[in-house]
């Protein structure tokens, strides 16, 4: 039977404020254990929270970037549950009046654009971390590191609008891209600054009623989200095919085994006993403040992509790849600012630059070749000073030495040979030295021409203008 997959995602992301959500402690990742703590984030008796205004600002920013309405009256609530990494045994979060609601973001999968609803964005505090000796199951003890306690989070909940695991991955990529653009989160899954839980259910094609869902946890990368959902969709389909029923439960993705396993059923689910946080006053947002934040939002990925397509004639794919990361897009804009030809700039950025960065495991911010220098290289090609092939050698040298393209070309004598007389002489000598190939070519073997071109390029160390070589060789033959 044919099933439609229905997926909704809950994404938690840490906000990159300097201080925590309810106290002045630092949010710095990787500090020595229990050094970024105070009575407030340790939940000692008698302490009270005070909201960090920056957190509200960042949450509004995220809400606006996700096309949400900002609620003029919002409040915090307590989510009550016991866990040793939660010093107060309740998490201060937002329940029925979150800061932002009813938004969306657009994703593109297989050339088709789909609009995915964002139900809500709400603020909350992060919990601490348990530290075990060895693994959680064989450790004699657990220690608590409270450094992360009170680091601000926003939770972004999607509507159940996603229809494939691939769309789920595209949604996450887009969300990450937007959050990076507005500079509210680092979105580093490996540091836990972005986490994702996924709800998934199946229903018969054409059915409007939602099927019973399961919630997937322990999805530690975008790839795991996709793989976990693919597995779970198949598992649910198998259960339904066998005439079974899906049990509403939380399941954990086991990446090593490539399966999901049951964690707890609906009956074992927590009753969080949410109620309004009496230690904080409701958040009344000044509409003027919201407008100010809206006006100051940077250009977002979709707008930037459209601009690149319209202004530079880039393909949707290229513009999409370049604008997925704000830093890459900014690098691109800078190359253009240094008068590089836009399409060549896009090709270089997505080609050599990206290849070198990947193999060195560097981000664009750490690229040793500056946009200005890359623009210099591209203009050497445009001017015909060097060939594209030579340019790759030059780029490698630029990467390693940090020198200008111009200097490298001059230093190594890599200037393209465009003098007809000079090329003719070499062509003649190669023809003379390879009578067999000449004969083959004349007998109709086109491949022989390639051999002869190769010989010419070898003699000129690749510097001869390839178009001229081709033309002159054909003329001579």
């Amino acid at each position, binding site marked *: 039977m044919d099933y439609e997959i229905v997926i909704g995602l809950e994404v938690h992301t840490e906000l990159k404020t300097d201080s925590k959500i309810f106290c002045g402690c630092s949010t710095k990742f990787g500090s020595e254990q229990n050094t970024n703590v105070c009575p407030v984030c340790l939940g000692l008796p008698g302490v009270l*929270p005070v909201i960090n205004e920056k957190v509200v600002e960042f949450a509004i920013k995220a809400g606006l970037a996700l096309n949400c309405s900002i609620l003029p009256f919002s409040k915090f609530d307590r989510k009550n549950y*016991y866990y040793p990494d939660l010093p107060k045994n309740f998490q201060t979060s937002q329940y029925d009046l979150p800061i932002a609601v009813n938004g969306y973001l657009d994703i593109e999968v297989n050339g088709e654009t789909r609009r995915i609803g964002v139900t809500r964005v709400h603020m909350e505090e992060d919990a601490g971390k348990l530290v075990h000796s060895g693994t959680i199951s064989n450790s004699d003890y657990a220690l608590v590191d409270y450094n992360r306690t009170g680091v601000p989070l926003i939770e972004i909940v999607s509507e159940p609008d996603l229809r494939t695991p691939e769309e789920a991955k595209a949604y996450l990529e887009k969300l990450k891209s937007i959050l990076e653009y507005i500079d509210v989160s680092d979105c580093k899954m490996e540091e836990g600054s972005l986490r994702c839980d996924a709800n998934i259910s199946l229903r018969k094609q054409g059915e409007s009623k939602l099927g019973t869902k399961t919630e997937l946890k322990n999805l530690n990368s975008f790839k795991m989200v996709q793989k976990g959902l693919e597995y779970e969709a198949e598992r649910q389909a198998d259960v339904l095919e066998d005439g079974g029923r899906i049990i509403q439960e939380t399941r954990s993705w086991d990446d090593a085994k490539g399966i999901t396993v049951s964690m707890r059923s609906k009956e074992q689910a927590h009753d969080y006993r949410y109620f309004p946080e009496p230690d904080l006053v409701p958040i009344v947002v000044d509409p003027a403040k919201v407008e100010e934040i809206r006006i100051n939002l940077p250009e977002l990925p979709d707008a930037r992509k459209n601009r690149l397509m319209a202004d530079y004639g880039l393909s949707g794919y290229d513009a999409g790849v370049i604008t997925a990361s704000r830093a890459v897009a900014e690098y691109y804009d800078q190359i253009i600012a240094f008068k590089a030809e836009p399409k060549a700039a896009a090709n270089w950025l997505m080609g050599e630059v990206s290849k070198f960065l990947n193999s060195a495991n560097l981000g664009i911010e750490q690229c040793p070749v500056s946009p200005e220098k890359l623009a210099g290289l591209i203009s050497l090609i445009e001017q015909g000073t060097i060939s594209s092939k030579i340019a790759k050698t030059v780029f490698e040298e630029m990467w390693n030495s940090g020198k200008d393209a111009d200097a490298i070309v001059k230093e190594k004598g890599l200037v393209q040979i465009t003098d007809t007389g000079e090329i003719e002489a070499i062509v003649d000598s190669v023809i003379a030295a390879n009578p067999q190939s000449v004969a083959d070519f004349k007998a109709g073997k086109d491949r022989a021409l390639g051999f002869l071109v190769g010989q010419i390029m070898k003699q000129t160390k690749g510097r001869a203008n390839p178009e001229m070589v081709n033309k002159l060789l054909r003329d001579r033959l």
Partner: protein
Amino acid sequence: MELFQYTAHQLQNLLKDKEVSAVDITKAVLARMDAVEGDVKAYITQTQDSALEQAKAVDAKIQRGEVISPLAGIPGAIKDNICTLGIKTTCASKILADFVPPYNATVMEKLGQDTVFVGKANLDEFAMGGSTENSGFYPSRNPWDLTTVPGGSSGGSAAAVAAGEAIWSLGSDTGGSIRQPAAYTGLVGLKPTYGRVSRYGLVAFASSLDQIGPITRDVTDCAHVMNAIAGYDAKDSTSIKVDVPDYTKALVNNIKGLKIGLPKEYFVAGMDPEVEKAIRNAIDQLVALGAELTEISMPHTEYALSAYYLIAPAEASSNLARYDGVGFGYRAAGNDIVDMYKKTRSQAFGTEVKRRIMLGTYALSSGYYDAYYLRALKVRTLVKQDFDRAFEKVDVLITPTAPTTAFKVGEKSSDPLAMYLQDVCTIPVNLAGVPGISIPCGFANGLPIGMQIIGKPLDEETIIRTAYTFEQNNDYHKRFAPLGEVK
């Protein structure tokens, strides 16, 4: 008269005139503590050594001719649910028996270096109770009759001042915990407007109701303590950002034209006739002094107690969740984390605390939230509206503080409902967030009777003026508790 029997403002004058030193006063109070604490049991922790050091420092300042604050050198007691840097703060609970806060409550910071603190006063565990019998350590006794309770939950703070073991004290009031013990011990107790005094460092019982306030021997001392502790605090988001008046300016012996409301619902069945008589006499006096009396109705009063016993426990169930044996406080050994939680909390919380945690957990549970917690919040709004409407017509409301005088030790300890009824007149004031003061207005069988004066939000001045006028025309506040025999 002994030094420990004076008011703070009297002692302040003696200090200024250099008739006594802060060390003299402190030694007198410490000697009194040594003499009677065994009977009264007002304290959990005594800080005699540091008190003497503080007194010496104040004397040195006076010697140098420096200006000192009105409470400088005057020994005070602090309820043991207010965090004191480096000094145990137990909340009268075994779960915090060894807890030493690494920080001061804002009120402690505001009181400052000049103040002499003689100890941390006993209370009902986590401020839950009305007799101080729920202390996890031992009950306190009422200095007017040692066979009776001093009220609660600030019973230790009240008993200390009444017995001469402190000149003034701080209590906290969630449903009457300052006013009712003040009434039982013949003292002045003020619960300020919610948000007037910072709660930072007050160990939370019910966050939306708790307020710190003074317990003193007269209204003048009350104004001085309020001057010291009131004001906005950036560390408490619920504190109110408005200027604080000089409360001593409200110490005016004049209530001509003051409109007094008498809410009929507060004169309930079960009220001691002696108490009612004393209140009615007091009202006659106020009218004779120039006040205008209006009888009014506050129709939702009868539901206030029920709403309170859902809202306060609901908040408490969450506030007290942090006492789990993990980071601080008492920890029992357990087989795993859940077992450790259960044993820690079972062993170290007292019966009343457990009762309220269970009540509150139930009220917030899925399926019950709307019927209990949410409905209680709606009742709270109605109660508040009763006050809003009343204050459109009158300046202050007058009621008894408690339906009876101090009851016998053990009399109500097995009947929680009877105990809760002692708060019937004080609870609506917390639900509405308005200020209320209790002052002595008579005696029945040798035990003090308290009158409650309730004011508009942030209008502590008018209730202080009313209280001061009544006080200046009477001398109930001048009588000193006789102690007596422990039976």
